[in-house]
Structures are given as structure tokens and as C-alpha cells.
């Protein structure tokens, strides 16, 4: 057994890691939560994925006992807790688990369509069924329990679907490289341009933009007014009101999304400004800019790449060709699931939880036990459960003030990237560990020369352009066409920015991270997982981005 040193603690970031927790290796999840999360998010949005993953590990018999989540001063840390077993037992467990999860690959698309997605939609239907403003306190309290329980179940489904999906893409990449050769990114050409919820949203919004162009009045409002003023301005004319009906229909179907992960972020139904901004951009585009055309081009390129690979595989044994076809089908299904699950669970379900929580917040604010409805996010789930049937019963304002102050004290403190005890050595090679590295990225390489950042190539191509550092979707008004989007991470609703940016550079993630996947769909260069991009790069810096080599140079 190798003794390892616990990671040194930052003196201004006290952490109380006791007993077994101190033996785990905690890594900050900057990819999903670059900033602090509020207490309720800590219990729900930040922790439910850990509980879901733990469930999925059990379903697929993974040699990992649990994914633990802890929140330190608002920052989210994850630890993988291994199974206690001898190396021989671990190898046997690993082999069995590989079989279990590989077995799921064969019917991935089918299971999503016929099993997982219908189950997800049934949960969402129940979660959204209560007429919140009219519900009694007792009904709201019961609904809160219902929603929280279903939210956990949804995160189990999330991980059951997503684990084999990412594994399929990761294994396909490795297989492709073994038989066809080339760079890692070449394999992903065969997975691009497949219709998903994301392309469905874009297509619907594009249709809406063509409707808008049919009315001079609506076109004028969309092209001149600030995004936030558009809904009110549309109400001023009959044509505007008719268009508003279409827009609301779009939002009803696709608006349960928000700018970033978490309960604190308003949905596009609450604040449609980000959707209206994309709509306004679309209105300024000619018919030829139809995103369906881009999708068709990507699909044609994909089919060519598939045909080339099949031709290359012609002299190979039938078993190799069959494996290729099976992995390709699984990876293509996985590519869609890896995108669509975000829509249904990460965003839709979270928004339904948010609406219930906010209703409680409003009732507490009305009863003056909270100062503001949004303060409800500073409560714990237990406090919320207690307040639900009787919002006037306990004054929660002091608790909120204290917790807000606690978080603010650490808002500007750089959180240590790791806590606890680092593992004695690298994990053994397995499909799981390879996938983990491709999703989260490997540790960024330390800069060897000034002005040079090294990450992973996320999407092919190289170009030079000015940087735009974006920390929140609200900053994106500043992003201009031709600029290079520099961000800690990009949440799925940032996707429209990829149509504007010339390239993308992120702090976090690997070749299978969402930022890399979307950059490939938009065919713009991306370098992911540089570790330091947002800390090093300033707005307007001239960057050379090379998505093939994963190198970013600050050249001016």
C-alpha cells in the first residue's frame, strides 16, 4: 500500500473533511458549476447527479461504490468511491461491469425511444401537473415531496441512459482509431449532423423567424428593439399579438431551459430574452442560412465518412465489420441521447422543480417569512418542507442573511481544485476510465512558454481572431461574429453562441464535453480543458486557436 499525502488546504479556504471523507479524492466540478451554488441547489441540482450516478454504477455493476458530492462554501466537489476489493477481485468486477454496460450498447437507441424517454416524460408530466398558484398549502407540500422524489428518479434515468451513451462514443472513437487511424477527432465526423432536440429547437425558431419576416411590423420590432422589450412591443399591434401567440407556443414547448444549470436560473418562459436574441439574429439572415442546410451538409459529410470507413473495412474479418456497425449505431444513438437528455432532465425537470420552489418562495415572501421569493434558494430542503404547509409559521429571514454572508465571504476566494487524498496511482485502463478522461478532460498541461495554453483538441480547424471572455449567458450580448468565445464551460443553452463565435476555448472538459460536441456540430475550431483560459485571456486579445493540436497562442 502506498501512503499518499492529503492535498494541502488553502489557508483561506477552511474545509472540514472528517474520517472516510478525508480519504476520498475530491475534484471541483467547474465544468457544470464554475461558480458557487446556493444551498438548495447544493442539495438538488448539484447532488442529485451523484445519487443518480451511484444508482447507475449499481445497475451496470461498476467497480465503483458511489459518486459522492460535497459542497464547500458553495463550490461543488465530486469524489468517486471505489469498491473495497483485492486487485484480482477488482479486475473480475471490471470485466463483469464492462459486459453489463456493453450489453446495453446494442439497444441504446431503442431503449431511449421506448423505455427511458417515455418514463422521463411521464415524470415530467406529473411534476408539471399541479396548478401551483391555486394549490393549498397541504397540496403544495405533498407536491414538493413528489417533485423532489421524481427529480431523483429522473437523475437515475439520466445516468442509466448517459453512461452507456458516452461509453458508446468513447469506444467508437477508440475502435475507429484502431482500424482507420488518423486523429481522435476524425471518428466524430461519423457522429455529426444527426437531428436531436437541439436541432429541433433551432429548426422551430428558424421557422418562427420566417413567419416574422412575413410582417414588416414584427420584423421591425425584432430587428430594432432590445431583446427584453420585444414581448411588450409585440402586444401593441394585431400582427405583433398574432406573432406573440406563435412565440409563446415555441416557449411552451422549448422554453423549459435556462442559461445555466441550476434552480437559480430563470427559464426562457420566465425570461425569453436569450431566445428572442437568437430569433432576432435569424430574422437578419437570408433563407440560405437555414440551420437545416448546415445540418444537411454535416449529415452528407458524415455519410461520406461512414462510406469511406466501410470501404476501408471491406477486407477486414466480418466480426470486425459487425463490431464497427454495432458501435457506430450505438455511438450515433449515444450522440443524440447525450444531447437530448440535457433538454429533458438537466433543464426541463430542473425548471419544474424551480417553479414549485419559487411558488413556496412567493408564499413565504407574502407571509414575510422571507424578504424575497428567490431567497427560498438559501434554504435547505428540510426547511422548505417545513415551510410548505405553513409559510407563515417560521421567520426564515435571518437564516437567509447568514447563509448569504457565508457564501459572499468565499465568493472571491479561489477554491482549491482538489481536496482530500489523491489516488496512489493512475486508475487502471478500462472503458470507464477512458470515457472519464474524454468527458472531464485530463489535467491541463502546465504552460511551458508564456502566452501558450495547452488543452485538448475539441473540434478541428485553426484560425486567428479576437477573444471574448464570457462568464455568463447574460454577457453574450457582447459576443460579435468572428470573435473567439472564451469561457470556463458552456452550458447547453449557450449553443446558439456557437453560431456566432468563430472558435471556442474553454477551461474545462475533454473531447466528449458538451463544448467540444457542440463545436463539432457547428464546425468551428475548439480547444477544451486548457485550465487557464479565462484566467489568462483578456477581451480583445488576439488568439491563434488550433483545434487539431489543442494549442491556443495569445499573439497580441
Amino acid at each position, binding site marked *: 500500500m502506498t501512503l499518499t499525502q492529503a492535498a494541502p488546504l488553502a489557508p483561506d479556504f477552511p474545509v472540514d473533511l472528517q474520517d472516510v471523507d478525508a480519504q476520498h479524492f475530491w475534484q471541483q466540478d467547474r465544468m457544470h458549476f464554475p461558480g458557487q451554488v446556493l444551498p438548495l441547489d447544493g442539495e438538488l441540482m448539484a447532488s442529485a447527479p451523484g445519487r443518480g450516478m451511484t444508482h447507475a454504477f449499481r445497475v451496470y455493476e461498476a467497480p465503483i461504490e458511489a459518486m459522492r458530492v460535497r459542497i464547500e462554501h458553495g463550490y461543488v466537489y465530486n469524489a468517486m468511491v471505489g469498491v473495497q476489493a483485492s486487485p484480482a477481485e477488482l479486475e473480475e468486477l471490471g470485466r463483469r461491469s464492462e459486459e453489463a454496460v456493453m450489453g446495453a450498447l446494442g439497444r441504446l437507441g431503442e431503449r431511449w425511444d421506448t423505455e427511458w424517454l417515455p418514463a422521463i416524460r411521464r415524470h415530467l408530466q406529473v411534476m408539471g401537473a399541479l396548478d401551483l398558484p391555486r394549490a393549498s398549502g397541504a397540496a403544495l407540500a405533498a407536491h414538493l415531496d413528489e417533485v423532489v422524489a421524481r427529480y431523483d428518479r429522473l437523475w437515475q434515468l439520466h445516468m442509466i441512459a448517459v453512461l452507456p451513451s458516452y461509453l458508446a462514443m468513447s*469506444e467508437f472513437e*477508440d*475502435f475507429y482509431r*484502431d*482500424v482507420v487511424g488518423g486523429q481522435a477527432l476524425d471518428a466524430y465526423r461519423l457522429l455529426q449532423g444527426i437531428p436531436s432536440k437541439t436541432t429541433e429547437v433551432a429548426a422551430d425558431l428558424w421557422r418562427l423567424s420566417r413567419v416574422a419576416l412575413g410582417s414588416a411590423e414584427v420584423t421591425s420590432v425584432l430587428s430594432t428593439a432590445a431583446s427584453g422589450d420585444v414581448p411588450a412591443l409585440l402586444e401593441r399591434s394585431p400582427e405583433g399579438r398574432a406573432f406573440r401567440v406563435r412565440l409563446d407556443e415555441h416557449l411552451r414547448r422549448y422554453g423549459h431551459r435556462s442559461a445555466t444549470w441550476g434552480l437559480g436560473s430563470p427559464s426562457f418562459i420566465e425570461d425569453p430574452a436569450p431566445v428572442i436574441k437568437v430569433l432576432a439574429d435569424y430574422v437578419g439572415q437570408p433563407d440560405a442560412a437555414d440551420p437545416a442546410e448546415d445540418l444537411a451538409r454535416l449529415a452528407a459529410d458524415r455519410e461520406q465518412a461512414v462510406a469511406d470507413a466501410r470501404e476501408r473495412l471491406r*477486407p*477486414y*474479418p*466480418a*466480426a*470486425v465489420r459487425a*463490431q464497427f456497425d454495432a458501435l457506430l449505431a450505438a455511438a450515433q444513438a449515444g450522440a443524440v441521447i447525450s444531447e437530448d437528455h440535457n433538454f429533458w432532465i438537466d433543464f426541463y425537470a430542473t425548471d419544474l422543480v424551480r417553479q414549485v420552489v419559487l411558488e413556496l418562495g412567493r408564499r413565504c415572501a407574502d407571509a414575510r417569512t422571507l424578504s424575497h421569493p428567490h431567497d427560498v434558494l438559501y434554504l435547505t430542503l428540510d426547511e422548505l418542507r417545513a415551510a410548505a404547509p405553513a409559510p407563515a409559521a417560521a421567520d426564515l429571514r435571518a437564516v437567509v442573511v447568514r447563509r448569504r454572508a457565508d457564501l459572499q465571504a468565499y465568493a472571491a476566494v479561489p477554491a482549491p481544485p482538489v481536496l482530500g487524498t489523491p489516488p496512489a496511482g493512475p486508475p487502471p485502463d478500462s472503458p470507464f476510465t477512458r470515457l472519464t478522461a474524454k468527458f472531464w478532460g485530463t489535467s491541463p498541461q502546465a504552460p511551458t512558454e508564456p502566452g501558450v495554453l495547452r488543452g485538448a483538441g475539441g473540434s478541428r480547424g485553426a484560425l486567428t481572431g479576437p477573444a471574448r471572455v464570457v462568464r455568463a449567458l447574460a454577457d453574450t450580448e457582447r459576443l460579435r461574429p468572428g470573435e473567439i468565445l472564451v469561457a470556463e464551460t458552456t452550458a447547453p443553452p449557450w449553443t446558439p453562441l456557437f453560431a456566432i463565435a468563430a472558435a471556442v476555448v474553454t477551461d474545462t472538459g475533454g473531447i466528449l464535453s458538451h463544448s467540444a460536441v457542440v463545436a463539432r456540430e457547428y464546425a468551428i475550431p475548439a480547444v477544451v480543458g486548457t485550465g487557464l483560459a479565462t484566467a489568462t485571456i483578456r477581451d480583445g486579445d488576439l488568439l491563434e486557436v488550433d483545434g487539431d493540436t489543442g494549442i491556443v497562442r495569445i499573439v497580441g
Partner: protein
Amino acid sequence: MRSLAALPAAADVAELLWLGDERAGDPALTGGKAANLSRSAAVHDVPPGFVLTVPGATLPRELRRALSAAYRRLGELVGTDAPPVAVRSSAVDEDGLQASFAGQHDTFLNVSGAEAVWWAVARCFASFGAQRALDYRRDRGLAEAPERVAVLVQWLVPADASGVVFSADPVSGDRDEVVINASWGLGESIVGGTVTPDSWRVAHDGLVIRGRVVADKRRMTIAAPGGTREVPVPGRMSRLPALDDAQVRRAAALAVALERRMGRPVDLELAWAGDDLFLLQCRPITTLHHDRSPR
């Protein structure tokens, strides 16, 4: 398959004989290897092919038309226009019981088109003058020029897996078990020793699989333009067995049947393609040092 060659069947003329043809089974005409294969064709599928057998070591140009016609016929038999073939020499005194002559002459794999096949056949004849073959013959006390040279032109089976099968254990000499070595792709990686194949031991009695070792098969041979190419086996397939149990038992049954027919232990080269099993070569085991069988 019957002989298409309209050539007289005298001992001192060139002939084209199809595998399976009775005369192709005469080692004095087609050499030990092709003759064995031809006789085996009565017992089991061999990849369709034909033998050019020529007195002396000079290829008569008149055979060219007969070769083109036979190659066309081969294409009809396997269902493609320009079937890939292997072209191999088979000396008339080769593969006799006294010496294994494997690998002493040129072999051309994955040759397609009548023109290219003629060129490869011509090269095979030329190779009989090559020094290494002459040295080999001299060392074994054989005549320096063979009385008759035969060249086998045979469909190159697009093998999913290939193997070498021994009807008796070539190491221990055990006569009651068949030993099967198999790996992905064409047989060159196994024969050439660049891959550690999977192996099975199957009892003659009841064809019970008694042992199985699945190896980490890193390399495999596939057809490539103008020949073959050794490529890496995809990581996730290297530890999958190249054969299923049914394929293993079928191969063992074939080895037992051929041993019975030949009257002594044999080694086979086999190719699996889709549902088909092809016999590529069958010869007596010449290195069974510890033969424990009663004589």
C-alpha cells in the same frame, strides 16, 4: 469441377487441371501439396482453383490462353469478375513424406485479373531457378532441377478467421486430441508467427472441447491491393475468441476425418468465411517426435 484443359494427358506435356479432378490428385503431376488438396476436395470444400503442371521449369507461353479461360471460370465459380487468388508453386517431389517443402518458393497473395495472375505464375516458375530453392534441394539430395513444376492458382478466401489444426498434438505427440490454433483474418499472421493465436484442444472421442486459451491477438492479416497487409486488431476485439464452439468442433471433426483418410496424423490450414469453412492445406505431420501411437 472438371478439367477444362483440352491438352493431352501425356506425362511430358503441359496441363491445366482443376482441384478435385481425379488427375489433379496425382502427386507426380501436380506435386504433393496440390495433389493432397485435390484429393481432400472429395472430403471437404477447398477454395476453387487449378494447377498448371509443366515438364521442366520453363513456362510455355501457349498456356496463357488456357490460364485466362480458367481464371474466368474461377470468377464464375466464386461469383466475382476478378476474383483474388493466391498463386503458389508446388514441386512434384515436394511435400512428400520425407520432407516438408513449405515456403521454399514464391507465393503471391491477393492477385486479381488475368494479366496479373499470368505474371505471378511466370514468377513462380522463375523462382525454381532461385538459389535458395536449389540449395534446399541439394541439401536434401534431390535432383537440382525438378522433373515437373506445378503452380497452384486458387481463390483467396476472404477469411474472417484462419487457423492451423493438428489432428494430433505436435508437441506432446498425443494422438487423442485435436489442437486448433486460430486468429482473426487471413492465415499469414499465424503461419508467420506474428500473432499468438487462440487455441483449443478437442477430444477425438465425442469432439468434446477440453481446453481453451483466448490469447491477446494484437495483429491480423487482411487483403490489400497487390497482396496482404498486417494491421492491428482493434483493442476491444483482441481478447474475443476468433471462433465459436461450433466452428471449433466442426474443424476438429474435419481433422479427424482427414487423419482417418490419410492414415496418419495431419496438419491442416483452414479459413472461415461467413458460414463456410475452407480447407487450405492438408499434409502429414512431419515433426511428430514423440509419436506414442501403436504402430
